[in-house]
């Protein structure tokens, strides 16, 4: 009899259970009070507590549920199935069977995998130093509040705003045999350079595009960091006779070192997973004889379509994931060591 009232009076009222972390509320609050005293129907109430009670569907889970649903269905679940598929021979339309480490063993003997791994690694090695240093210089240029700086800041951000497809197409046009850069080179008498036909130049061009597109983004991160560098440090150094370069090395760099590590981590993770720039500049096939394929391009090519080898592509995905996490851990570790 008494328990039959429980479900009605019990809906844990988060409005009450909510931010009263510090406690100190009146003693007889909340669901407990409701269950012990034989309260009449809660809907009939109109007092102050009634206002709280009226909107019952206010469980915190209602707030979190949509987010959890999306993230669970489209990130966590696919991640787990990717892990699982990497041990199977699953194909796009056919369920596979468990094959143990066969996919991973096959990777070791797959030339294309090694080419892709090499390219993704090279990409990272080439892009990261430029993306750590150049945006910092750019940020220093626009940092001081001088006339026109708002314009320059926004203008430098334009490549970030533009879609990677637009950026890719613009640069294909710029780097074309008959494009702007080659006709400038011809005008000054250097002659044409086959940016889009040579395997290595193609990769280098894609790197340049990635750097070009990323400058503004990292510039903003550096701007936030530079804002917190005390002006006095610069002034003290200037009084001591340190020039601009000296002050950059002794004052600015140490002050934004943590940010440099962050930028290094972010840009290396992004660079290792590069897809769009190379896909657009080298073409879906990955340049001459596929020599410019990157790991994510390989995943897309191997696992995509109706005949895709999902199991094998998943194994490559797991490799990319492991390297990505390892990179982040490495950088974080490096950061901590430096602090100690």
């Amino acid at each position, binding site marked *: 009899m008494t328990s039959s009232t429980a479900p009605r009076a019990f809906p844990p009222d988060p409005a009450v259970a909510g931010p009263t972390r510090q406690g100190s509320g009146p003693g007889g609050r909340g669901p407990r009070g409701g269950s012990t005293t034989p309260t009449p129907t809660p809907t009939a109430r109109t007092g102050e507590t009634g206002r709280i009670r009226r909107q019952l569907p206010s469980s915190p889970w209602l707030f979190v549920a949509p987010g959890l649903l999306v993230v669970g269905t489209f990130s966590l679940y696919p991640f787990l199935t990717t892990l699982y598929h990497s041990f199977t021979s699953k194909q796009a339309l056919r369920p596979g069977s468990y094959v143990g480490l066969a996919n991973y063993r096959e990777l070791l003997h797959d030339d294309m995998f090694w080419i892709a791994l090499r390219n993704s690694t090279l990409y990272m090695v080439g892009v990261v130093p430029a993306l750590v240093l150049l945006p910092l210089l750019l940020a220093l240029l626009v940092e001081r509040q001088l006339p026109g700086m708002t314009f320059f800041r926004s*203008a430098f951000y334009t490549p970030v705003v533009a879609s990677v497809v637009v950026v890719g197409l613009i640069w294909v046009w710029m780097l074309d045999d008959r494009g702007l850069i080659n*006709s400038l080179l011809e005008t000054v008498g250097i002659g044409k350079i086959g940016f889009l036909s040579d395997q290595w130049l193609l990769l280098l061009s894609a790197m340049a595009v990635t750097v070009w597109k990323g400058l503004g983004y990292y510039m903003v991160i550096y701007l936030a960091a530079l804002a*917190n560098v005390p002006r006095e440090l610069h002034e003290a150094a200037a009084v001591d006779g340190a020039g601009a370069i000296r002050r950059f090395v002794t004052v600015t760099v140490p002050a934004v070192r943590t940010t440099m590590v962050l930028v290094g981590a972010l840009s290396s993770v992004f660079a290792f997973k590069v897809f769009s720039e190379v896909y657009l500049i080298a073409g879906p096939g990955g340049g001459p004889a596929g020599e410019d394929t990157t790991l994510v391009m390989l*995943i897309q090519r191997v696992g995509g379509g109706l005949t895709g080898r999902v199991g094998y592509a998943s194994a490559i995905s797991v490799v990319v994931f492991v390297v990505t996490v390892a990179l982040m851990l490495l950088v974080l570790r490096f950061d901590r060591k430096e602090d100690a």
Partner: protein
Amino acid sequence: MSFPRITDADGRRVPPAQLFLRYGLLLLALAVLVGPFLWQLSTSLKGPHEDIYSSPPSFFPSEPTLHNYTRVADTIPVWEYAFNSIKVASANVITNCVGAALAGYALARLRYRGKRAATLAFILAMLVPVETIFIAQFITMRQLGLNNTLVGVLLPASIGAMNVLLMRNAFMNLPNEVEEAAFVDGANVWQRFLRISLPAVKGTVAVVAIFSFMGAWDDFLWPLIVLSDPENFTLTIGLNYLHGTFSNDSRLVAAGTMIAVLPLIALFACLQRYFFRGVGEGAVKG
């Protein structure tokens, strides 16, 4: 010495030599970062009889025309693609702002069993690289019967884990007292969320909105995987298709890219105040 006296925000005079160097470098960076867009714009305006491959290159079109823009529309249904992109991007803004604000609020301000687990789920989701799971996402999407639809393009990024955590941080930085006072006055959780906390984190909502719009408008890999039927293409995929089919006519491709990028640049130019305000606020602190 009639050189104009130029001062920085602190009213300090900047030596002319330093000014020349600084603005010189700024203009150089401007040429490198914005120049390619202008070159593309100029190509898109060049007439059919102009030599677009001339050496030395000529920047200004000698017979400027908008003809290439109408030709793009004749070649691919570019306005429909743009409309598809607008639909996806707007929906993405709404789902992200609403979903991330709700979840962020619950993670920061409410107490319940399982809160830690929920927070952890979002952190883990943020760590999973999209590039490694898109094949599995594709299979999930096919099971849901949503492949080749705009809903399928939208869903995976509709509530970004990163945005949820951003909102959580914003809510956590609010002082507790105001909400407690409202609680004492009998405001329920929705009232406190909508009337008190949410208006206080408008800035973060704006950032989430800007990034959601750009993210959806610019996304390439996922729409490329999900969409197979040209009818449902978004602008990025349509452009890639235009390039593949008519790569020999640079004027046409240039006009297409301008259609894709100009609205976004305009949008950003309007919103850049809000965007850079965060940086400016940081500067005041320092």
